[in-house]
């Protein structure tokens, strides 16, 4: 397994997903590192690039979940501050801020669907949840966006 090539190819994508779930740069780095450790340890055989990507996302989100549940978490920066650190444009910052205000499980589904382009069935497979749960989380996420964005942008 070529660690360096895999990190160069996938770490930006994993970073986007993990930072949104964890809200902490250090926790995110921990999650990505553990993901690639597992990658080297398990040496999985992939059918194609998409399979590899989905495997990495699954492992990373599992690590995120473990970090949130059971481990010492690094201090989180306030959402406003984090959104400002991640993106510079005001509209982008608003979108990131709204996303970070959602429950972590909802954030993961929103990012996988809207940013990484996965369909409901694929997300269910990656996160190990039912398609119904994915749809519910997407629906709640959209509702949250609708109410807040409508107020701010449609006046």
């Amino acid at each position, binding site marked *: 397994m070529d660690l360096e090539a895999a990190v160069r190819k996938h770490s*930006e994508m994993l970073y986007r997903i993990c930072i949104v779930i964890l809200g902490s740069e250090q926790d995110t780095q921990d999650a990505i590192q553990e993901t690639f450790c597992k990658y080297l340890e398990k040496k999985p055989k992939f059918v194609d690039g998409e399979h590899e990507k*989905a495997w990495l996302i699954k492992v990373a989100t599992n690590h995120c979940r473990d970090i949130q549940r059971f481990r010492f978490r690094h201090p989180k920066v306030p959402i406003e501050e984090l959104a400002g650190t991640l993106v510079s444009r005001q509209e982008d910052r608003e979108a990131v801020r709204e996303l970070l205000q959602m429950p972590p499980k909802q954030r993961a589904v929103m990012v996988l669907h809207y940013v990484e382009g996965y369909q409901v069935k694929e997300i269910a497979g990656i996160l190990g949840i039912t398609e119904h749960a994915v749809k519910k989380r997407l629906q709640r996420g959209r509702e949250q966006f609708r109410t807040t964005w409508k107020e701010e942008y449609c006046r």
Partner: protein
Amino acid sequence: MSEMNGGQLRHALKQVHMKENMQEEIIMNVRTQMADGTYRRNSFKRNMVSAAACLMAIGMVSIPAYAGYQGFKSAITSDKVLARMQEIPNEEQQDIYNMVQYEQRSLHADQFSREYTEKEMSRRKVLQQEYENGRFPENTLAMVENAGQIQDYGELVYAKDTSYFYLPERELTDEEILQILDFNSTREYVLEQNPEVQRQKMEQYEEAIREKQGDGLLP
């Protein structure tokens, strides 16, 4: 409407990039962890958790909660700390449980008014060990009901309504770090005692088993 928002969200998130050098740090740290065995040791602990999970899930044996604490690297990692937690009066436990429930309902994760300094992080590691060996704070963490009650950040204080730790500008003292560790342990312990939380943990155990059986994506 949702598509438009989806597009905006996609655009915003595509602007998010790792900080410079993070890729290099990850490659270096992964290589180090794999070479010096750090990752394997942690894997062993994770496997022990899964093994315990299997046993619990099929109901063949009952595993003391303490074993679960150890496996999950929870705040409760020693018998001395556990004994201390068991001395918390029921009323106080209920108050803490209500507070944690409120935090969860309002979706507040712990936040801090500033990052820990490197010195505080390293002190925390040392003090965590000492805490587990029975060194406890003399006082409990100072708390206020809402953040508006805080006059200044001169002292360590926790706002219940926002789950916010206000850290003083100066370095935290050992006593203050111990108070934070003790507070975290107390929350963990109180949560663990709740039947609903135990039910959720069982679900997590089952999920861990599924994960142990395979990552689900590999043929």
